[in-house]
């Protein structure tokens, strides 16, 4: 009853999973019409906390108060009824339904002779006009862009009467321009009395939109202050705990050509061109960054270089020799080190031990198997050496990989890839989901390899990372690759425009048919 302005109060919330304290006595409050930004590295406890507020988890201790009502544990329906709406990072929309159907889904009685959508349609139209969230109610979800899907998610929450909106990394899938548009919408909503909890990694955005900042580290609340008292440096330091020195990129003279793609196209199973006439050169001592909103051809591009798919036209050559066989093993033998996009799916066999994952690409060599018999001693020694060299803490050769942290899992993959001294390194989202320390380690390794003569292709959605690490940058859009640009003089804004497709139209018209 202290002040009527408080819409959400988190009081002393504690949650443990086994030995892990995910949330340790966290308290803060959100005021009406304000944006509270929740910051923290991966594993700091943000997601757990949000799941408690939304009623997915029940806290071991402490309570949540929404508009003065105490939330009873483990009941998302109650949280929704009290006015909490959540927009997840990965959308929860049914692709085969229309916008209207998705929005009203679950709010209508299940058994009804005839569905009457007119009331829902009216309500949806009012909401989209009120908040400037324009989408066609009858469009199929699958035909929408990512930005539009996110609008539908927000409308879904508003339709259910949300007064407190939780946005989990809402800009991760957006171009900078789409993000700006989202922020305009958010400001509109704040003016109308809604409140927002904004979860993000990107400090720039937080500085632009937040009123208050809460920083979590290792499950503890380490800072809670208004934005006026914050600066990027302070927030970063609070998040990481100590200042982590970023490795500096040194300028290097590029060496001999390693990889050349000449007007390469790739078709998917349905005959759609998913990579369109891509030409590209990679030389020794060079790091090339590939930017782009995810789903714009990065996958076929990296699959091609990984040996997971074949070009339908054009040619790929390695050190001047044209590649004819596109198989993973062939690419590994040709000196390509591949760090896959999704480490859980493609990178490791989660239920295998560290030592087994470390030989996954080389188990057939005489060092690890003779006449079909695994050389267990060599396998184990190999793992021990790599664990030491890559400082994989808390793991032995026989530790099951599933239990490792994201950073350590990535180290297992890096160790496997880098120990062969590959000439070409394809790193697809190598720091996604890693904390600053682990990400810095990955960058150091890439710089080290580049110094030793390797060429690196870095595919990332994090523009700051790309600008810090790459020598040259290109942007992917709808399966096309822009020209390579030297990193000096490239701005985030320029990249943003390219990512949203500007400058690609002309390239589209000039057809490079290298049949």
């Amino acid at each position: 009853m202290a002040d009527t302005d408080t819409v959400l109060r988190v009081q002393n919330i504690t949650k443990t999973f086994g030995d892990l304290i995910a949330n340790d006595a966290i308290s803060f409050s959100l005021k009406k019409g304000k944006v509270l930004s929740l910051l923290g590295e991966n594993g700091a406890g943000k997601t757990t906390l949000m799941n408690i507020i939304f009623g997915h988890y029940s806290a071991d201790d402490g309570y949540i108060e929404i508009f003065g009502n105490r939330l009873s544990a483990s009941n998302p329906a109650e949280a929704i009824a009290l006015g909490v709406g959540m927009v997840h990072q990965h959308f929860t929309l049914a692709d085969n339904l229309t916008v209207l159907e998705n929005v009203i889904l679950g709010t209508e009685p299940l058994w009804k002779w005839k569905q009457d959508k007119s009331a829902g349609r009216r309500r949806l139209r009012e909401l989209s006009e009120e908040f400037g969230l324009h989408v066609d109610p009858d469009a199929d979800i699958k035909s929408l862009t990512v930005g539009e899907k996110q609008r539908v998610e927000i409308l879904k929450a508003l339709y259910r009467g949300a007064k407190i909106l939780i946005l989990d990394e809402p800009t991760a899938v957006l171009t900078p321009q789409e993000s700006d548009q989202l922020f305009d919408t958010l400001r509109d909503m704040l003016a109308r009395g809604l409140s927002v909890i904004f979860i993000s990694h990107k400090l720039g955005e937080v500085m632009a939109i937040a009123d208050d900042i809460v920083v979590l580290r290792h499950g503890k609340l380490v800072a809670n202050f208004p934005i006026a008292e914050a600066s990027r440096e302070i927030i970063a330091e609070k998040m990481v705990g100590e200042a982590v020195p970023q490795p500096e990129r040194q300028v290097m003279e590029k060496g001999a050509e390693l990889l050349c793609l000449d007007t390469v196209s790739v078709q998917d199973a349905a005959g759609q061109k998913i990579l369109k006439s891509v030409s590209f050169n990679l030389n020794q001592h060079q790091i090339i960054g590939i930017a782009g909103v995810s789903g714009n051809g990065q996958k076929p591009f990296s699959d091609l270089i990984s040996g997971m798919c074949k070009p339908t036209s054009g040619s790929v050559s390695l050190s001047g020799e044209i590649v004819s066989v596109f198989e993973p093993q062939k690419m590994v033998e040709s000196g390509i080190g591949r760090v896959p996009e999704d480490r859980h799916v493609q990178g490791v066999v989660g239920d295998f031990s560290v030592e087994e994952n470390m030989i996954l690409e080389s188990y057939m060599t005489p060092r690890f198997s003779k006449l079909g018999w695994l050389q267990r001693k060599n396998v184990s020694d190999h793992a021990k050496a790599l664990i030491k060299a890559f400082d994989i803490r808390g793991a032995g050769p026989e530790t099951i990989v599933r239990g490792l942290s994201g950073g350590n899992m990535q180290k297992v993959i890096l160790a496997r890839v880098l120990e062969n001294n590959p000439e070409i390194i394809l790193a697809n989202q190598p720091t996604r989901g890693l904390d600053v320390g682990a990400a810095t380690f990955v960058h150091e390794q890439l710089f080290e390899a580049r110094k030793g003569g390797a060429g690196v292709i870095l595919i990332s959605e994090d523009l700051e990372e790309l600008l810090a690490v790459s020598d040259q940058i290109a942007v992917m859009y709808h399966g096309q690759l822009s020209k390579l640009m030297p990193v000096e003089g490239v701005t985030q804004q320029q990249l943003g425009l390219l990512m949203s497709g500007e400058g690609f139209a002309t390239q589209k018209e000039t057809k490079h048919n290298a049949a």
Partner: protein
Amino acid sequence: MQLEPRTHTPLWMTISAPIIAVFVVMILCSGLILWAGAPLLQSYVALAKGAFGSKFAIAETLVRATPLILTGLAAAVAFRAKLWNIGGEGQLYMGALAATYFGTGMINLPAPLMIPFLFVVGAIAGGVLLLIPALLKTRLNVDEVVTTLLLNFVILLLANYLLFGPWKDPMAMGWPQGAPIIDEGILPKLVAKTRLHGGLIFAVLASISVWVVMTKTKWGLEIRAVGLNQEAASFAGIPINKTIIRTALISGGLAACAGVTEVAGTKEYLTLDISPGFGYTGIAVAMLAGLNPLGVIVAALFIAGIYNGADSMSRAMDVSNYIADVITAASLLMVMLAVMLTRMRIRFS
């Protein structure tokens, strides 16, 4: 009520979980026994005696466990690679057919060669049978659950046709059964005056061999990797299709060997009832064993004991021997639940 993963599982829990599960099953099945009007304690004693209570009972349980070990191994190997081979029954009959074709006089070899020869031709026949669904899966993406299951009926009907027609033994007084396996092809008896035969030794050696292959060899690594994460295996350059085909040959071959042990060991000639569903029960054996090749021996002994024990319980106490199916099914569920509880804990909020 929520499930949360345990950070670690103590050893005593891993060992005691299946034992507790079996006790729970006995408590659950008590209701059925009482309903049948039989005294509870005496019934369970009869069951235990029938399973392991005498030299004869033990021998019979081992005889029954022999084909179950082999079909259990077949399922365990295939399931490790996520190749859902439900066709153990058909592969078993395929092995039995091959042993009958070659073993009833067509080829005459001295016993030390004849017996291995029968296992080899049987295994090849079973492997080739599973090759068909495996190729359909790898080439055309056809679901192997359907194809392996349906092939069971094809092979069983083929055996029917052969035993009522061309292969019918004229000396069998009209019964649909094959000619007897020649003496050189009969598996030697292990204990006098029992049916216990050398197939058991073969089955145990097979379990050990499969365990060695799965843990110590390149093939085993490939099979496990393909089963646990096919995408990562493929990305690392492990040949997926080759591994699935190889797994199919091994799995089909193992199930077929169960047919060989029944024809050349237990019955000594082919009939249409050499397998009371050993191929299907093998799946339960494999699951009960957690797909562990050595665990398969224990699981097969357990299930064989239940079936034999229930038979003698039904004779002594007049309880239907279908109770064996109930106990087996309940054990399967309870052991799986118990294994899950060793990995997860329940929290009440």
